[in-house]
């Protein structure tokens, strides 16, 4: 319960800061030197936040659709042949550093939001795929047997049994993806994507700690809120299926 209150307070402080960042200037003033501005001014932090969230949302949704579809394909009878390969590729893919994936996307796609989106999408697909796979293959054999025994067609089994039962794990995969993407997107501003990383990098370049801290705080609070939001969804999904 205290957790929920803290989330609510964090969310309200964040909202207040995004709407009227200048009100918070006295708070950040001690972190600046030589009369540097305490609040990032070049672009509105609100618009950067929205753009940041937009990129992450698009990437997470795309990774979820792609990861889920792939997981469904490799767990069907006709796709079984791909299952070992898919597992290997996922394991290898997750050892690739997100920063390096981002850097490698630039030579192919150029600067801007594009490479960030692609890197986030590719990297984010892995946790979703892995978790969806675990959800689709991990259910008890009795359930599958019962579903077959009652005469459900494979498609009915997928929609009515397999996917609902895999939902909690799928949500957990989305949570991992969302939190990783949120952090990695900040690095996207080194390749000229419009994200909150811009604030942090401006702070690094001008040795203005206030910028670094406010950029970091906004992303950090967003990450905590999203993390807890997904966890609440997972809990509800688990309760519905009686897994808790």
């Amino acid at each position: 319960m205290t957790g929920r209150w803290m989330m609510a307070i964090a969310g309200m402080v964040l909202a207040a800061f995004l709407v009227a960042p200048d009100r918070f200037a006295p708070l950040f003033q001690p972190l600046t030197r030589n009369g540097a501005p305490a609040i990032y001014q070049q672009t509105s932090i609100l618009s950067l936040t929205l753009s940041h969230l937009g990129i992450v949302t698009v990437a997470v949704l795309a990774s979820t659709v792609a990861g889920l579809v792939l997981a469904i394909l490799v767990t069907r009878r006709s796709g079984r042949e791909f299952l070992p390969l898919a597992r290997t590729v996922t394991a290898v893919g997750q050892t690739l550093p997100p920063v390096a994936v981002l850097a490698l996307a630039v030579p192919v796609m150029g600067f801007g939001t594009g490479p960030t989106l692609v890197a986030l999408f590719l990297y984010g697909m892995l946790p979703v795929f892995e978790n969806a796979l675990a959800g689709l293959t991990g259910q008890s054999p009795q359930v599958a047997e019962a579903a077959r025994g009652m005469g459900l067609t494979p498609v009915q089994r997928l929609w009515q049994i397999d996917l609902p039962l895999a939902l909690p794990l799928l949500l957990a995969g989305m949570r991992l993806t969302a939190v990783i993407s949120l952090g990695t997107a900040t690095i996207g501003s080194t390749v000229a994507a419009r994200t909150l990383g811009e604030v942090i990098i401006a702070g690094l370049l001008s040795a203005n700690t206030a910028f670094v801290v406010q950029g970091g705080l906004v992303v950090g609070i967003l990450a905590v809120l999203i993390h807890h939001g997904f966890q609440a969804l997972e809990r509800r999904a688990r309760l519905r299926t009686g897994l808790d």
Partner: protein
Amino acid sequence: MPRIQPPAVLFALTGLAGLALPLVQLRPNRIVPGEGIALAGLPGGAAITIVMAVVLLAACLPRWTADLRLGVAIAGLLAVLLLLGMAATHLQQSGNALARVSPAVGFWLLLLAFGLMAADAVGRLRLSLTWRWAMLAGAVGIAAAILVSGILDGVSVMREYASRSDLFAREARAHLTLALGSLGLALLAGIPLGIAVYQSPRWRGPVLSVLNIVQTVPSLALFGIMIPVLGWVAATVPGAGAAGVSGIGAFPALTALFLYALLPVVSNTLAGLTGVPVAIRDAAVGLGMTRAQVLGQVLMPLALPVLLAAVRIVMVQNIGLAVIAGLIGGGGFGTFVFQGLNQTAMDLVLLGALPTVALALVAGIALDLLVQGTRRPAP
């Protein structure tokens, strides 16, 4: 009618696309865009294209065994690398001295096709642990031999390397120091902390929440915040500066990586210890072991596989995150990545990114094998 291997069809399609698309890109100099040249467009390339296409299609036949496929995949990988080197050398001779030849999408697709084929074959062969170690060592050895041989020296990334080989060695050392040093520190601090929260459950929640929150701070910000914080510590805490604490150089990056590494080490130490069956712990205490003996002789050895899994997570994560040190003057391969991004010199970006990816990949696979080697069957 024999059944066709579906994964092989995927590899073949990927490979065929790679053959059709430009293998390399030829640019008049380091930063301007250039024109793509497909394998068929190179002298003798048409014949090689046909041979490769036939091999890729033939691999779809069900008759082919996994070891044959593995052989073909390895041969294919080597051939693709050699073709890249030869194309670069050839185009360089015919062009001006500033011209750059870099791998293009066709090269990457071919590499992907044969790489997937190799991965699929290795997966099907169910090799023993020893064999998988041997294969990893072999792959690293062959890659090193190709780089040393000079075959690829005409490729743009290697030319970028040639002009700064001393610097590369230094940044490579710095990168490894950052990744391994922070891992070492995290183990030194994290294992005792994990043991402590195992023994006093009251502290579990608070310690793990704090470490979890550290993980949510974006890496860029954590690295950045370390500079003023450590600068302040070095200036105000007596003896801190002398002990090596500093707000500039590699120290802030090392500290940030250390903080990120702490959560996996602490939580896996805890998970490993709590995972030891109660009967075993009971038996150890009941036979008259002291607390230290129970911990050192029974609990820690049994928790080792889980702890090693944390080492794997941290190692791979730190190799990747250490790139960000390049942005705050902490050294490492990130220096090349961010310099390259600033100068829009993509070859320089690759010079930083490719070794990082290779390092993470090798470390990840090696530690996976190590974890599997220590995992014991349950009694």
